[in-house]
C-alpha cells in the first residue's frame, strides 16, 4: 500500500491518519475533484473515478443542505458489509478540501471519525496560505489533472 502526494504538506498528516484510523484507501481532493494526495490506490483510473464520485456526492449533499436551510451536513458515512466510506470536508488556508476514506472491518466508523478530526486539524495547521490563482481555462484544468495524476502514480 503506497501513499503519494502532489502537495507535500499533506504527506505527514495523511500517513499519520492512515496509521491511526487503519484506513485502506484515502483521497484528499479539492471540491472539484482534483486530487492532492492519496493512499492505497494502485491505478489512476480507480483514483480518478472515486475522486470524481466523492466530489459529486459532497456537492449534492451541499445542495441538499442549502435546500433545507442547513449550512452544511458535515461528514457522510456509507456503511457496507465489508467496507465503509467516510466522506467529509475540511477547511484549510489553502482552501476547502474533501477527504474520502474507505475502511474495512479491522477498524470502525467511530475510530475513523475520531481520528479524522485530528487529521483535519493537522491539515489545517500544515497547509500553506492559498496562492492567488489565475482564471482556470479548460486546457489548464486538463493539464493540472494530468500532472497531478502523473505525480501520484510516478508517470
Amino acid at each position: 500500500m503506497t501513499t503519494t502526494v502532489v502537495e507535500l504538506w499533506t504527506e505527514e498528516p495523511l500517513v499519520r491518519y492512515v496509521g491511526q484510523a487503519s484506513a485502506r484507501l484515502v483521497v484528499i481532493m479539492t471540491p472539484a475533484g482534483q486530487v492532492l494526495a492519496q493512499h492505497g490506490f494502485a491505478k489512476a483510473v480507480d483514483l480518478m473515478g472515486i475522486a470524481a464520485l466523492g466530489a459529486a456526492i459532497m456537492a449534492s449533499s451541499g445542495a441538499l443542505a442549502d435546500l433545507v436551510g442547513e449550512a452544511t451536513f458535515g461528514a457522510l458515512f456509507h456503511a457496507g458489509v465489508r467496507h465503509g466510506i467516510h466522506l467529509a470536508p475540511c477547511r484549510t488556508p489553502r482552501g476547502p478540501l474533501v477527504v474520502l476514506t474507505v475502511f474495512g472491518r479491522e477498524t470502525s466508523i467511530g475510530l475513523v471519525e475520531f481520528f479524522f478530526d485530528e487529521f483535519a486539524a493537522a491539515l489545517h495547521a500544515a497547509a500553506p496560505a492559498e496562492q492567488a490563482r489565475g482564471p482556470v481555462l479548460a486546457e489548464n484544468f486538463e493539464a493540472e489533472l494530468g500532472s497531478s495524476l502523473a505525480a501520484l502514480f510516478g508517470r
Partner: protein
Amino acid sequence: MAEDIRALSAALAGNPASLVYADLAEALRRRGDLEQALRVAKHGVARHPEHADGLDCLGRVYSDLGDLARAAEAWGRALALAPEHVGALKGMGFALYRRGDARGAEEMLARAVAVSPRDEAARRALETVRRAFDAAPLPPAPSADVREAPVPARAAPSPPSSPSPAESAYQPEQREAPHRGGTGAAEPAPAAASPDSEAGPTGAGSPETVAALPPVFEGFEGATADILLLDDRGLVVAGGLRGGDGRDVSELAAAALAGVSGEAGRTARYLALGEWRTIVAEAADANLVLAPVGAGAMLLVRRDRSMPVGLTLRVAERARGAASLWLERQGA
C-alpha cells in the same frame, strides 16, 4: 437471487472495470453456476490483481470446484495483500485443514477470530479444528515451514452434540451482496479430515519443546501452561500457554496479544489515563491479566474462573517482578 444476478451483470456490463464482479461471482457461486462464477472471478482478478476481496471470491469458487491447490493460492495472494482479511484467513484455514495441516489451519482460524471476534463461523471452525486434536497429540512441529510438512490428519471424533462429519461439510462464508439483505445463513463447521491413525506419538507442546524456553516462572503454578511473556512483535520470550487439550498455543496467543499492548497504550494516551499498568479480562472460561514488562514486553497470566480476580492480580504482580528481573539479567 436471479434478480440480483441480473442487476449485477448489468452493472458489470455497464462498467467492465467495476469491482462489482466480485459480488456477481459470489452470487453465481451461491446459485451453483460455478463455471460462470469462475469466468467472472478470473476476469475480474486479472483486471484488479490487488483486489483482496476478488481473490477471496476466486478462492471460494476454486474450492467449490474441488481445486484446493488453486483455492489456497488465491487465498494466499489475498493474505499477502491484506493479512487481516477474514474471508481469506478462514478460507486458508479450511484449505490447510483439508490438506491435513491442522496446526496451520488452527493458526489461520485463530488469526481470523483475533481480527473478528464476533465471527461465529470462525469461532466454530476453530473449535472444531481444536477438537480434532483430542484424538491424539500432534507430532512436534518440524523446524521447516509447517505447511511444507503437513501434520498427518487424525480421526476427528464427532462431539456428542454436533452433526456427523458428512453432515457438517464446511462451506466457505456465504457473502452477502452489499446492497441487498442476505440470508445470513449459519455456516457449518469444517468437515473432518480423512482419518489417518498412524500419527507420531509426541505432541506439538511436548515437554521437550516447552523445556527449551527459559524457566523464568519456575515455582509459579502453571509456569509453562498459563503464564506467557511476549514481546511487542508477538513473539514468545518465556513461559508458555496450553490449550484446554494440553496443546501448546503459546505462539498463537502471542500473535493475538501483540496488538493489545499498542491498543491499550493508545487508549490510555488519548483518554488522558497516563500509562496503562494492567488489563484484567474476565471471560467465560478463564480470567486473564495482561501487564507491560519494561519496554517492549508484555506478560499474560491466565487463571481459572474459580480463582478470585484479586488473587490473580497478585500472582501477576509477582510474575511481572520475576520477568522484569530476568529481562534485566539478559540485558534486555
